[in-house]
């Protein structure tokens, strides 16, 4: 805790906002002498961006608060949205010019799963940042099935195998084991499913006729907006959920649930949110798109600078009611590199939120392909697709060309350094096996990857009615 932060802890949230505003004012004044005298020729200058109240919207808040948008000549309004559906519709119908999106959203919209619209992303927002939380009741039932370390704390990562007897017991009592996730094409849905399936719990299939995603399910997943997760868990409607921060730590603080695993432990440095705009917008306003990307890259860099030195300040920003609005200590819990599982069981996860390191902001095709494989695995993509199709879709949605052009400008302006960007990559990350179940993922071979996964559709399998059939 910096002394500055302690001072804020002592004051009330609003006066904190005042103190913060003056602080930001001071730093923004320092930044108002932009390094460049040359603005891009912007087609649109007044923009409204949507976001959901989650810590990973941070690049947007930072770009606004530190005046990075203004430096590019953009006048941005940030608007919190009720849920992912409203946010996506807002971008599609033009009420919003862009938004903080789930990585699956632009992909699903482009291939026409749900609302159809061609959405692209020139900028990946972050890595990791999610967790899976279960209610106290479920945790107490699970705990005996989890091996302990010498000091009596549970051994991590916790496998979903510990859930099997719990689900069995629920079934005997005639209670469906309901879990919450934030959106059908969300990272959280795929992560929760990955974790469950890796432990032998069937999370259910989707089919073209039945989009509930509960065909053959052991655990029944349904949609709950992130900020309502703790309240829904408390009300007993769901027994666990997968969600981004601060809503896992919130459950710990309120004493209503226990996070069992973070997505960092599930898949090290997995891609999370993206910044989405319509393809039409990018086509009609190429310079505006570049300017937005530039501002966001600078914000991401600031968030990870000097070993997360600015995180405290970022937490103060995010705790303002117009952004995330949760208590500072709740947001700080994960943003500053630690994560609390059971009350008092705080563990170091320095990379829980990554905004810039490891080329986090570069829109890798392999990230897009992984999401597509999961859509296929659970039946959202009903038919088998050739490897080439995965590549095509990834290329039409993820736009590293825009990203690199913006990065090049920033390098020329002396605001970022050359080595922070993967200039020569072909868009595919190296194959990785850093998953909880150790299965290797190579983005260039989606079909081979699908075959290696336990539980899930592979080859030419399809879901018809309640059965999986092969053609």
């Amino acid at each position, binding site marked *: 805790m910096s002394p500055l932060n302690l001072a804020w802890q002592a004051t*009330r*949230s*609003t*006066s904190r*906002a*005042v103190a913060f*505003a*003056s602080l*930001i*004012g001071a730093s*923004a*004044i320092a930044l*108002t*002498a*932009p390094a460049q*005298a040359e*603005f891009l020729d912007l087609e649109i*200058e*007044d923009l409204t961006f949507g976001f959901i*109240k989650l810590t990973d919207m941070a690049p947007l808040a930072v770009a606004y608060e530190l*005046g990075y948008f*203004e430096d590019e*000549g953009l*006048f*941005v*309004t940030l608007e*919190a*949205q*009720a849920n992912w559906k*409203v946010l996506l519709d807002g971008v599609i*119908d033009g*009420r919003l010019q862009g938004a903080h999106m789930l990585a699956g959203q632009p992909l699903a919209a482009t291939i026409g799963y749900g609302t159809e619209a061609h959405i692209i992303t020139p900028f990946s927002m972050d890595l990791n940042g999610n967790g899976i939380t279960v209610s106290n009741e479920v945790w107490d039932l699970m705990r005996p099935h989890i091996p302990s370390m010498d000091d009596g704390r549970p051994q991590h990562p916790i496998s979903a195998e510990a859930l099997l007897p719990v689900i069995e017991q629920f079934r005997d009592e005639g209670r469906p084991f309901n879990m919450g996730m934030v959106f059908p094409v969300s990272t959280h849905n795929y992560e929760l499913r990955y974790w469950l399936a890796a432990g032998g719990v069937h999370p259910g299939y989707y089919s073209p006729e039945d989009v509930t995603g509960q065909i053959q399910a052991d655990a029944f997943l349904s949609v709950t907006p992130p*900020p*309502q997760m*703790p*309240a829904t868990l*408390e009300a007993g409607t769901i027994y666990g959920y997968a969600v981004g921060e601060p809503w896992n730590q*919130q459950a710990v603080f*309120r*004493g*209503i649930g226990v996070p069992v695993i973070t997505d960092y432990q599930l898949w090290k440095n997995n891609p999370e949110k993206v910044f989405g705009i319509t393809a039409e917008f990018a086509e009609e306003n190429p310079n505006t798109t570049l300017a937005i990307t530039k501002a966001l890259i600078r914000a991401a860099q600031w968030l990870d600078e000097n070993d997360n030195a600015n995180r405290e300040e970022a937490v103060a920003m995010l*705790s*303002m*009611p*117009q952004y*995330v*609005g*949760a*208590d500072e200590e*709740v947001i700080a819990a994960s943003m500053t590199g630690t994560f609390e599982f059971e009350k008092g069981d705080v563990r170091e996860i320095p990379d829980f939120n990554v905004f810039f390191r490891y080329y986090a902001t570069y829109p890798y095709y392999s990230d897009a392909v992984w999401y597509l494989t999961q859509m296929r695995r659970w039946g959202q993509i009903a038919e088998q697709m050739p490897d080439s199709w995965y590549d095509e879709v990834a290329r039409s949605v993820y736009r590293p060309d825009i990203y690199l052009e913006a990065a090049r400008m920033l390098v020329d302006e002396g605001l970022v350094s050359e080595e922070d960007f993967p200039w020569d990559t072909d868009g595919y990350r190296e194959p990785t096996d850093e998953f909880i179940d150790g299965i290797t993922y190579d983005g260039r071979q989606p079909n081979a990857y699908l075959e290696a996964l336990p539980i899930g559709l592979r080859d030419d399998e399809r879901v018809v009615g309640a059965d999986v059939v092969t053609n």
Partner: protein
Amino acid sequence: MTTASEFDAATDDAAVREAKKEARFAAITKAGGYLNILGLGWLVPILKIAAGDSPKYQMRELWQLLVVPLIGIGLFLAAWATLAPQVQTSLGAIPGPAQVWDEAVGLHESYLAQKERAAAFYERQEARNAELIAAGREDRVRERQYTGQATYYDQIFTSLWTVTVGFLLATVIAVPLGIASGLSRTVNGAINPLIQIFKPVSPLAWLPIVTMVVSATYINVVEPLPKSLVISAITVTLCSLWPTLINTALGVSSVDKDLMNVGRVLQLPTWKTVTKLVLPSALPLIFTGLRLSLGVGWMVLIAAEMLSQNPGLGKFVWDEFQNGSSSSLAKIIVAVLTIGIIGFLLDRVMYALQAAFTFSSQR
């Protein structure tokens, strides 16, 4: 032993004083009517005491009009302060009056902070523009409005503006329809089933439909009426036109038959009948309908804003609920009290209008 003339003079004096006093009381009583409308009825006994009426009787009046309500409020606050801390939620205990007051002050402070941020934004803009002019790039000079978070006062203003638009729209639709259905049995028969079906529909059921329709049809957005506001306002209209419609129809159909017959004898044209006979007689009931409508509209609006995330007090409540910070509950209670007080004031405004336009404001 006084002389008769002296006695006369004394009684004359007394009579004059008495007359003056009477005049004063008459003035106070007359003013009392207006004060009642403003909810300041408790001033009347005080004025009467000042004017020299017997304090004993007036004190009893004052007790009824001022002290009893204050005791009620005091008891409520005391009960709240003692009971609230005993309810533990996951966001901490329910805040008592003191925390809520703090939070209200805090909201005002954040409004001031927001003003400061806006000032800083304009300063930066000035500086940037000055630089650009110095660099000979006048084409890049921009004068923009600050795009910060809506303050609490902005939200209140937005909600009031929305409810005004929705309510006026409802009135424009409901009053003519009500008059028509009150005058003609045919019209009444035709729209009665529709009224019966649509009246009980919840605003939240209308909302998705209204949202879709407005999004599709309202293309050329004008500045004071953004899409979100129109959606909320139309939802308010759909829910708040029924009381006006029903009461207008009732008021019009119960106009004194003799009056209508006089109108027929004089062979008044329909328009004259409506303006000279029907409206004046039906006004009290129409206003009753309008008051009910405004109350319903205000209630509906908050719900609509909460659900659709349209700017306004409803969104403020929902956002705070979603924030889930330790001060959220207190802020929500501030909003609840604000909503209640504004609802009360709106009703008073309608009551005042009713008193101004009609001769009977007994409700």
